[in-house]
């Protein structure tokens, strides 16, 4: 170091008082996650704008019947319960209880997975009844009925429905993988790999999830890179940050559920 100006009162790295007080006294990763969520809310905001734009300028059909609503209500209950178990996981992490952190995280993942599976079955059922977009694989028997008519007459209805819910489902899937990596580190990777391959071979090729399951493969790749770069264990802060993401995804569903499901139903 050739310059003397630095010497005046300079402090060593990491010493208390070396930095200005951070925003809200928050842990940096927490600030980062809040900022990501701000950005992500605009990503969803744009999709909701596209949905509203179409809904305003189109005679919007209301084809969903009671079975769909019942199923979506159970899905909503799953997500709400998962937020509760997530909170429990954060509490357990903050008191240093590793076993229960892991258990509560696992419970959250189970609820999240249940949501995805229920949603997948719902999609499959709707596509089977004719609510579809041209790019999806065609089911074996051509469907007829109200949903098939909607797809034909108002293609914006299935397009916004599948677009919005697919984006949300992708976020829930990323969330489950995120929690899996936080809870189980590298041991989660083989589970993910097995799910990916099993999904690909077990889901028939006329089902859209036969292709959608590759999101797990992509998740596996990203998770492996992150674990390679950051092999150390995660702490309570990381669990809390993961919780922020999880609650956000939950919150987004609280917009999608009434907009896409409840407002597309006839009350007879």
């Amino acid at each position, binding site marked *: 170091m*050739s*310059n003397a100006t630095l010497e005046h009162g300079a402090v060593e790295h*990491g010493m208390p008082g*070396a930095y*200005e007080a951070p925003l809200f006294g928050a842990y*940096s990763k927490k600030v980062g996650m809040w*900022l*990501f969520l701000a950005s992500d809310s605009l*990503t969803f905001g744009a999709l909701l704008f*596209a949905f509203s734009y179409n809904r305003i300028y189109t005679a919007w059909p209301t084809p969903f019947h009671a079975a769909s609503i019942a199923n979506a209500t159970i899905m909503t209950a799953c997500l709400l319960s998962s937020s509760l178990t997530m909170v429990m996981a954060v509490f357990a992490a903050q008191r240093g209880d590793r076993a229960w952190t892991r258990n509560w995280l696992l419970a959250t993942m189970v609820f999240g997975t249940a949501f995805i599976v229920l949603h997948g079955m719902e999609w499959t059922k709707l596509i089977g009844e004719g609510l579809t977009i041209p790019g999806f694989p065609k089911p074996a028997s051509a469907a007829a009925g109200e949903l098939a008519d909607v797809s034909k007459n108002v293609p914006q209805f299935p397009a916004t429905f599948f677009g919005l819910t697919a984006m949300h489902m992708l976020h829930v899937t990323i969330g489950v993988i995120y929690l899996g990596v936080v809870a189980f580190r590298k041991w989660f990777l083989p589970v993910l790999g097995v799910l990916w391959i099993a999904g690909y071979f077990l889901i028939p090729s006329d089902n859209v999830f036969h292709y959608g399951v590759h999101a797990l493969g992509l998740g596996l790749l990203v998770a492996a890179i992150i674990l390679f770069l950051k092999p150390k264990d995660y702490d309570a802060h990381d669990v809390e940050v993961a919780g922020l993401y999880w609650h956000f995804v939950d919150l987004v569903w609280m917009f999608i559920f009434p907009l896409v499901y409840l407002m597309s139903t006839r009350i007879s």
Partner: protein
Amino acid sequence: MATPASVHAHAPQGFIRKYIFSLDHKVIGIQYFFLALTAVFVGMFLSLLMRIHLIWPTASLPLVGTIQPETYLSLLTMHGTIMVFFVLTTAPQGGFGNYFLPIQIGAPDMAFPVLNMLSFWTTFVGFVVIICAFFVTGGAPLHGWTGYAPLSALPSAGPGEQLGADLWITSIAIFCIASLLGALNFLTTTLDMRAKGMTMMRMPLTCWSWFITAILGLLAFGVLLSAGILLLMDRNLGTSFYVPLVVVNGQVMGHKGGSPLLWQHLFWFFGHPEVYIAILPGMGVTSQILSTFSRKPIFGYRAMVYAMLSIGFFGFMVWGHHMFMSGMSPYSAFAFSILTMCIGVPSAIKTFNWLGTMYKGRIRFSTPMLYAIGFVSLFVSGGLSGPFLAQPVLDIQLHDTYFVVGHFHLIMGVAAIFGIFAATYYWFPKMFGRMMNETWGKLHFFLTLAGTYAIFMPMHYLGMAGQTRRYSQFTEVAYQTKLLPLQTFMTYAAFITIAAQLIFVINLFWSMFKGPKASDNPWESTTLEWTTSTPPPHDNFGGVTPVVHHGPYEYGVPGAAKDYVMQTDPATSTAH
């Protein structure tokens, strides 16, 4: 405070961890810089082909052959996209922001070094994907950098609209992800990692500009990501978000009921903030350089900060002024017009503050200073046509003419590039440890300034005369041939300007290896990057964190020993 101190105690060894997959923000900054340098030459080459085609449409060129009209559209699409995304967004923010934001606020690195590395490599993948669009069947897309639907949404709409357009959208989506991850890293770093004494209002204006740019990037790129995903769905899954019932070549497409306006709303909600993403860092570096080389404090530091904040704020409320001719309601056009003209106020505040900074200063006309003055010049001459275009009535005449092309090239293209040049000449000594050649730098400046004015000023006249943009040939159209001499003049000016850029490149690489060694503070600047050694050590300040006692621009302080007071000098000499 999560200081990554332990991580940074030791610099990584080995070529790959040190130079390729480096976590050091300085190496990543230089990687961004060279990515942008590569991209700017690709983009410039494309513009050269366009200029040649405009006046010699049938000429057979070496390597590329005769340019077809649809190839002209591909060239302009790729020129615009590469320049806007991979140059104007990448160099000032990713390049210089990455390198100097942590140093200027006294941090050892960005808040998330791993994320920083991933942002760069994601951007790189995006660049590779968009370059691939040239080489696939059908070639590069035709839809312009704005990607207006339904042209961009129908693979059968033209030769480049097949796989090339898919690659284009994919590249943009990848770039969006990289940019928003980068933006949140910048914001967290600025909020959480400022050294003791570096309050927000003591940050150099460069840091403020990167900070505000990051806010814009964080909010704008998320929207473009969604818009791009919906466009991909329209193209590949047969949905109809953007496509109404259309007939292409006598064939009814399977789409129905979509709205091309939806794309325009979503795109310009991103697209207008993107203009400020390109120009704000240039404003920051211009402020820094004008103050340093005028040996005067910046005129109205707080006004500068608030002006940038309000430009960023208004930037999100004016996207509709790109859509006056789209059939949007005239009432909303009125609102967008008023809001757009509001941006003139903070812009004027900035301009007058720059002039006030130079007024009665002891100006040192070094190359960075010349480029900063050039930035102000271009900012004024490009900006003044803005209020014209903001009037819906005038826009009916001027929309989609060369007037618009001249306007945005001067203010968003060349002014931002001048900001990049100013930053390059100013920070080169710190980044590479050597000085750039001043004589060649000044020659480069005068040729570039004269050349860019010669290219883009005549475009205003062409536009007022009604010459439309995006037309590939004017030579065969009777009423257009009268304007051809002006087009020819612009093409020759482009030859000279592009040749002048070779001076820059030679100067850059020659100085990198052979230039005279730079001292720690060659420009006698006051900010933190000039307190550390040249080039800075791995953790920026050699194991310590500086303590800041002063604002960033204390030049010509009465009673001080020198004519400048470093930010780290002890707090005795001034009351600030």
